[in-house]
């Protein structure tokens, strides 16, 4: 490792640790959220430094991007608490009894030492690089990460797309109603974002398609494409194109579930021909994976947008609650 690289990596490492510390220790909630988003972006840089461009794309888009939007959005509910005792590290403010905090810190300090030893003395297990590359010829794609995600370990990926459906349902449970408030289709002309949206959204859909296609051979694929699609959806929503609220119930339900359901369907289909669940015949693996990825992209993008839309629907709850009219107009079943 050359000295220049070492300097860059060390700076990045310090920046990441510093931002993480600031995100939890700073008193202002707004500053905390901003630090956390910056932390996510620096983390994406670290993934890039560690030769993981796929992860960098996912982290920047979902970890920092989507979660950042949701976090900032949530802040308005907690407005005025920036300087409250609750915001900072409790120990600093003496809110928490000092002795327990001290023991917690001591315990975690000792634990960090143990963990550090474990990491620095870790035996070299060798990993699965060679195995992944060797099997690439039978996988139907040329990019190893895509091969792992959609062929070798497609069961994990399938379940993970299922987690998106589960999370959406769980958020419905938290909010108390399934569906999206009937919004007004009100494309805004006045906002800068509206102009951006017109320009950006079609471009982003194109980029998503390109990323999806790219995943076959290069960093990219369903997740990155789905997230870009989701971002396009969020920008459109922000600009007043409330397309999620305009969808009928069955449309968004199918949209949310289709990625998971098609993956399932493709996996079961070949079990009738003596293959295992999620096993594809080698000759058709490439095209099957592309189909599975396309539907997954659609669902991931829609889920990301729906998370955002549901959060904006909860804003309406807040204001309606303030006016004593909470709970009116739920759902669009």
């Amino acid at each position: 490792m050359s000295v220049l690289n070492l300097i860059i990596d060390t700076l990045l490492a310090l920046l990441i640790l510093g931002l993480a510390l600031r995100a939890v220790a700073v008193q202002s909630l707004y500053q905390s959220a901003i630090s956390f988003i910056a932390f996510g972006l620096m983390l994406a840089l670290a993934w890039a430094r560690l030769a993981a461009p796929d992860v960098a794309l996912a982290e920047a888009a979902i970890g920092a991007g989507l979660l950042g939007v949701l976090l900032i959005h949530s802040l308005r509910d907690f407005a005025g608490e920036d300087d409250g005792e609750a915001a900072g590290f409790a120990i600093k403010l003496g809110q928490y009894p000092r002795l327990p905090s001290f023991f917690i810190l001591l315990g975690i300090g000792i634990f960090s030492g143990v963990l550090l030893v474990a990491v620095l003395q870790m035996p070299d297990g060798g990993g699965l690089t060679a195995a992944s590359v060797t099997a690439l010829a039978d996988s139907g794609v040329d990019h190893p990460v895509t091969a792992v995600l959609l062929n070798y370990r497609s069961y994990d990926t399938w379940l993970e797309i299922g987690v998106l459906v589960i999370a959406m349902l769980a958020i419905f449970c938290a909010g108390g109603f399934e569906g999206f408030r009937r919004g007004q289709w009100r494309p805004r002309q006045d906002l800068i974002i509206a102009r951006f949206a017109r320009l950006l959204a079609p471009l982003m859909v194109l980029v998503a398609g390109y990323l999806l296609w790219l995943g076959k051979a290069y960093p990219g694929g369903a997740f990155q494409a789905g997230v870009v699609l989701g971002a396009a959806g969020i920008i459109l929503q922000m600009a007043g194109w409330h397309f999620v609220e305009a969808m009928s119930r069955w449309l968004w339900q199918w949209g949310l579930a289709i990625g998971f359901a098609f993956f399932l369907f493709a996996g079961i289909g070949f079990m009738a021909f003596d293959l295992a669940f999620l096993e594809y015949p080698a000759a058709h693996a490439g095209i099957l994976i592309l189909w599975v990825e396309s539907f997954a992209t659609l669902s991931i993008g829609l889920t990301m947008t729906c998370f955002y839309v549901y959060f904006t629907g909860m804003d309406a709850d807040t204001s309606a609650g303030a006016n004593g009219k909470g709970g009116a107009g739920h759902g669009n079943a």
Partner: protein
Amino acid sequence: MSALFQSSNLPAWLVLVPVIGGVVTFLLPVRLRGGVGLLFAALTTLPALFAGWLLTGGTSMRHALGGWEAPLGIALELDGLGAVFILMTAVVGLIVSIYARVYFSTVVPDPARASMFWPLWLLLWAGLNGMYLSEDLFNLYVVIEVVGIAAVGLAVLSGKTPALVAGLRYLIAAIVGSMAYLMGVALLFGATGVLDISMAAAALDSGPTARTAFALILLGLMVKTALFPLHFWLPPAHSSAEPPVSAILSALVLKGTFYIILRLWVEIFDVSLSFAAGQIVGALGATAVIWGSLQALRQDRLKLVIAHSSVAQIGYLFLLFPLITVPLGASGEAEWAIFAWTGAIYQVLAHGFAKAAFFLAIGVVVIAFGNDRRESILNLVGRLPMVTFAIGLAGVSLIGLPPSGGFLAKWMLLKAVFASGQWWWVPFILVGSLLTAGYIFMILRLAFAPADKEVPMRKVPRGLQLCALLLAIAAIVIALPAEWITGLLQGMSAFGDPVELMSNGGEAVR
């Protein structure tokens, strides 16, 4: 088409049937979800029964997903131990589903919200079966998250503020637990280069990395299993959920992560285990037995009594670990390992049935009287005799009175304790039973006490009462097929083959 349902696909179908049910119920309109959901609950029990029948000889079967064998691919493996858990999930799951169908269609005022129960519950069920089948460390992380998020989603289904607060606490504990697990898996992967459980076991050497990975995984899963002192999230979450959800959370969800601890303990971590590790975990379990029971005695609301009782009953499960982690050369070890295993598995089954019965019964009480305070069940026996009977039977099993499943569990654990010479666990087991008897009789005494003035009572559908009673009966009669269940377990290599440590208490030998 016959290829689709050949028996080698059985492990996959155990996950797929409830998943299909989850997707279908999600896509259906609200009014159809209950009926179709119940249909899929019934369908899900079919492969589970088939698994129990198929494995009776004590075999195991493996299904390489995607056609990729380990180390690159993920395998599902169905063995005797997993089959017992899958069967319990199926029986409890089906009865709770029937209860839920009646409960959500007659009692709950908001059918649209209640209908979200079905997709979440079926997907959770799939996740549980996935836990009992998975042979892959990272896949276990994914199914842990599936179960965790779905469980919290169900816990907040009522939308009441206490449920939301308890749910967020539960969720944060669950996320921290699963992240600790993932960190441990990362260390294991770094040290062994594989994720398949048996391959990782073969490649893992004793050392600081293995020990730390073990600690991280154990701690993470202990949070999720609510072992004392990491149980803080359980009582509020379990007591504020809807009755069928409480039954699912306490009877089934807690057992999933316990199963993973058990599996990894005997399959991977035997290399870095010491006598002390078993004793520490056992001590936490023993403390949980006493602490949880004492807390249960102090509660005013019945749901909280039952939720704290879960903390205690989970404690019993962890007494298995000191008993199977013993110095090599102690006499008769194979024999007491069989007792310990049978005892712990019976504790899983008995607690699963009895606790589910309890929560369903208290659910009936809440419908009838509008709350679950102690005073409201005065003269319960005269007004809801079937529910009183269910509470009594479930109580018998929780205390461990013969001839219940709970009796068999505690008796076998005691036998193992005596045979192993670890007599110091005896007082915990006995005092735990006494304290359990204390809060059960407290409930029964109220149920049989005459009421000065009758509070008005809402009519409760008979089906709900019957479901509670069925589960309570199951908690008793589960003691009958003991031989068959032992037969299922015998297929496991770990069974009857305790983790053997050298007599100086040092590293394990393979």
